[in-house]
């Protein structure tokens, strides 16, 4: 193995952190009753894409291609977040500012944009620290690695079920299926 085990632990910790962000989104959906909009769901998919990129390191060892996948997923997800930020950046007189509740003064789509930007910066740091594992390297994930991957998979399944309950088998509009 070319890379220290600590780097793999940090990789899995980043996966766990992103998974907890998605758990927080579920809290807003079911705890506060704020149904996610279509753009919100697309941002959740962006987070899942980043988690998938990190899971490639867990399963197959560190490779530069995996870092490219993470950056690509973060750019896509970040585009969705920035779109929603720009949609609500100009307050309308008489209407509440932004869409949904704010956390520490910023809405969830703004926090999502920060998370995606942080992901790109963190990947740049990782690229300075890792070395490509040789082709054919067999890596045994630790219990922590396997647990975070399983947790992320269950989160993805939960999101699929929750979206099916919200929008049925069709496209989503605000607060439910499109008319």
């Amino acid at each position, binding site marked *: 193995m070319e890379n220290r085990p600590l780097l793999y632990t940090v990789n899995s910790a980043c996966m766990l952190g992103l998974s907890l962000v998605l758990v927080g989104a579920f809290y807003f959906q079911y705890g506060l009753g704020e149904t996610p909009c*279509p753009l919100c769901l697309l941002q959740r998919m962006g987070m899942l*894409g980043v988690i998938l990129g990190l899971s490639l390191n867990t*399963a197959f060892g560190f490779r530069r291609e995996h870092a490219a996948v993470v950056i690509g997923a973060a750019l*896509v997800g970040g585009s969705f977040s920035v*779109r929603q930020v720009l949609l609500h950046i100009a307050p309308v007189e008489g209407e509440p500012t932004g869409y949904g509740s704010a956390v520490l003064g910023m809405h969830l789509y703004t926090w999502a944009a920060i998370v995606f930007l942080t992901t790109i910066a963190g990947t740049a740091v990782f690229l300075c620290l890792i070395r490509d594992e040789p082709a054919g390297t067999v890596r045994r994930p630790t219990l922590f690695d396997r647990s975070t991957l399983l947790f992320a998979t269950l989160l*993805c399944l939960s999101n*699929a079920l929750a979206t*099916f309950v919200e929008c049925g088998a069709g*496209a*989503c509009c605000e607060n439910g299926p499109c008319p």
Partner: protein
Amino acid sequence: MTSRPPRLPRSVGRVEGSPPSAPTCVHLRPIPMAFLFLSYLATFACVIRGRRSAALAGLALSTALSVAMFFHHTTSGLELNF
């Protein structure tokens, strides 16, 4: 006085009575959101089963479908300003 736009068949993905869009726009049929999450779930399954090439292909497909849904969202005749 403006005339109502002709009703188009459902197969082109338009909602009846919606305002007409730019004449050159081709509306993509919306992809069910739940199906998009299932495509990500299939990619997770490929990672767990140790199939790297399938996982990379699955992630590329899932991301492409998400981007396609994003463009549908931005060009839809529905007022999806959120």
